[in-house]
């Protein structure tokens, strides 16, 4: 819970010394509450008050950066339980576990496949985030496998081992890339913590029990380790959803600092369908990092698409560049369909036009990302804006005909649009699903 100006005032010296630049301590407290400046400006504040104030200015869920180079990613800093309350901020990292018992050639093949997982959807690039090397053999093999991953990908790395000595050696080899250590438990915390400390690495702390998890993070924190990720272990998906929800609530509703860290889930399913279903469920319900083993492209695409959906800002619809898009081998005779630059409108129309197999042009009008009816109501999708877009894209030199197809819901625009654009308006179907049948019957 954020402190109010008055709460902060109670922590200040109340001497009105003006050294902070404000006339009174109360005025200074009000500025602190707005977070326009920091407590450093007060030379007389007590260390306890300073601690309290610094702590309350921290995010409820710590922002953790994983990896070190250009492919690093951030998780945490989430502020809501439901995306409609504001938005989910840092998309869950999707990682892949590679077992060190695989042969070199197999490891390399897997890495190559993982590196190719990059999909463009609705104008955004969807990418995977992490490779985890898991020890299953001796220390020598674990180190070899870690080096293979290190040398064959720039993706952030995670090291999974039950043996602290092996983990330390692998951490030393990969330290420059800031690998994520897995994991500290109540039994080995005293051995894992020094590794995280020595190499300044983020560490996963694991326990089946949330209460114990909180104790462990406090212990790590007191040892100076701040980059912590939480794991409640392998459980049924129902229990997992409960744990993830509870962790998010602890951080946001109770300001429980000991659990104010991102969470990690290792999906323990061998069937790729089951694995994708559980990964998607954990992404929808607050996981910061999700690890899978499968490398089926179709499964990865579905998980990444779900992540994109869940992490889309509900206040800012995805937009595409407003312009003329030729679809298929469009010619001077091809029909011209008009829609908005709201990504979902455009891509829905696109899908149907492609399904019709009739080469066409789609003109995406700049409606500031509003959908057809919303933009029409807001006067962003009218005869003027459509005519302007037609002129700008030079449609007159691109097609030989004088016909435009507009969405059925805005049939009312026909008269004005014909007058202003000089084109003949054909009213298309109300729903994009009707486009293939409509285009087939056009002539």
């Amino acid at each position: 819970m954020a402190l109010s100006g008055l709460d902060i005032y109670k922590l200040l010296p109340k001497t009105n010394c003006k050294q902070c630049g404000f006339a009174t301590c109360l005025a200074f407290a009000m500025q602190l509450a707005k977070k326009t400046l920091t407590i450093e400006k007060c030379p007389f504040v007590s260390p306890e008050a300073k601690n309290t104030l610094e702590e309350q200015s921290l995010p409820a869920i710590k922002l953790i950066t994983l990896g070190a180079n250009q492919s690093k990613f951030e998780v945490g800093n989430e502020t809501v339980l439901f995306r409609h309350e504001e938005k989910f901020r840092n998309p869950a990292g999707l990682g892949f576990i590679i077992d060190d018992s695989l042969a070199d050639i197999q490891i390399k093949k897997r890495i190559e496949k993982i590196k190719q997982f990059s999909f463009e959807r609705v104008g955004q690039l969807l990418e995977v985030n992490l490779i985890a090397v898991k020890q299953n053999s001796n220390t020598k093999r674990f180190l070899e496998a870690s080096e293979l991953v290190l040398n064959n990908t720039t993706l952030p790395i995670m090291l999974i081992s039950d043996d602290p000595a092996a983990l330390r050696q692998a951490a030393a080899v990969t330290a420059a890339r800031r690998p994520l250590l897995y994991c500290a438990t109540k039994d080995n915390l005293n051995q894992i913590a020094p590794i995280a400390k020595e190499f300044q690495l983020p560490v996963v702390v694991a326990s089946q029990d949330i209460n114990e998890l909180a104790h462990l993070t406090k212990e790590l924190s007191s040892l100076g380790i701040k980059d912590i990720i939480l794991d409640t272990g392998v459980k049924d998906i129902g229990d997992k959803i409960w744990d993830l929800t509870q962790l998010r609530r602890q951080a946001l509703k109770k300001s429980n600092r000991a659990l104010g860290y991102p969470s990690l889930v290792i999906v323990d399913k061998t069937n790729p369908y089951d694995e994708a279903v559980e990964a998607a469920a954990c992404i929808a319900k607050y996981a910061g990092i999700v690890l899978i083993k499968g490398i089926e492209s179709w499964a990865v695409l579905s998980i990444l698409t779900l992540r994109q959906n869940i992490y889309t800002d509900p206040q800012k619809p995805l937009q595409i560049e407003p312009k003329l898009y030729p679809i298929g081998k469009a010619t001077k005779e091809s029909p011209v369909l008009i829609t908005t630059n709201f990504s979902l409108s455009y891509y829905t129309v696109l899908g149907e036009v492609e399904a019709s197999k009739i080469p066409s042009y789609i003109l995406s009008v700049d409606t500031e990302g509003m959908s057809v009816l919303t933009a029409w109501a807001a006067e962003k999708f009218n005869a003027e804006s459509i005519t302007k877009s037609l002129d700008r894209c030079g449609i007159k030199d691109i097609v030989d005909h004088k016909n435009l197809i507009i969405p059925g819901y805005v049939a009312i625009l026909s008269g004005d649009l014909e007058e202003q654009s000089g084109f003949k308006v054909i009213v298309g179907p109300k729903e994009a699903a009707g486009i293939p049948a409509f285009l087939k019957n056009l002539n």
Partner: protein
Amino acid sequence: METQLVLEKWAGVISTLTIGADAKEGGTRANTVKIGGQKSLPLLFKEGDIPNPTAIAFEIWDVSPLDWPEELVAAYGKALDNPFDWADKCINEFKAKLLCVRMQGAHPDFGNKGPKEAAEFISILLSRVKVPLIIIGCGDDAKDNQILPACSESARNERCLIGCAVQENYKTLVASIMADGHNIIAESPIDINIAKQLNILISDMGLNLERIAINPTIGALGYGLEYAYSIMERARLAGLSGDKTLASPFICFAGQESWRAKEARISPEQGIIWEIITATSLMQAGADLLILRHPEAAKKVSEHIDILFKNKS
């Protein structure tokens, strides 16, 4: 200090809707399916009672579908040529406990069948299969106002779930459903205010709120799924907080939407996983009844539901 769990207490409860009536209740169904009734946010079993698992209905049509992707057609094969064989296959081979029949043949572009034919079709279907039925119109308001009352009458006392009523066209359907003892699907275009308004309009006509399922009009994975997802979360929060006009179970046409996606045509696995993830993700937002198309998707979603609900009797 021990960590105290954060538990939410809800004043409201989602209404329980039963589909199908057995002999004791004046119908002829062998089984019935209950949805809704929960006192908790979706899938948080430790917080409040979730008495009924998410239900799955197989979608069938009264005519052969013309535009279904190859993979989907392959899953049913020849059975698609005859709706009754299709229904049998769903039940016998794929263990469907609930069927959702779309009266597509009534659409002016799909055969333009009349109310008499529609009523006859439903009557034969009811004698051929013993599972409860969901009956969906063809999407043409004028035609649906003719055929759905005929279907409703033909299935009198079988307690079907029939739809979809929309804000501009609900009166005819509500009247039939009241007369014949069915439940209704109230469809709103990804809009929580219209969903609420329509529920009020329908209950004002005398149909109990407990006989309404909301169709929030979902988008598939990658095609606007997140809009319905958040509308459903908001409606569910309102329902649990005590707003009875939003405390209806959700019906989601996950099969229909996901097989329209471009991805459904990339590979069989891509299409199937698209339908699965669309369905299971909407369960996180409160889906109570999923209308699915591909048998493999239905199987996987069903397994997921079993794991989630295994500790429930």
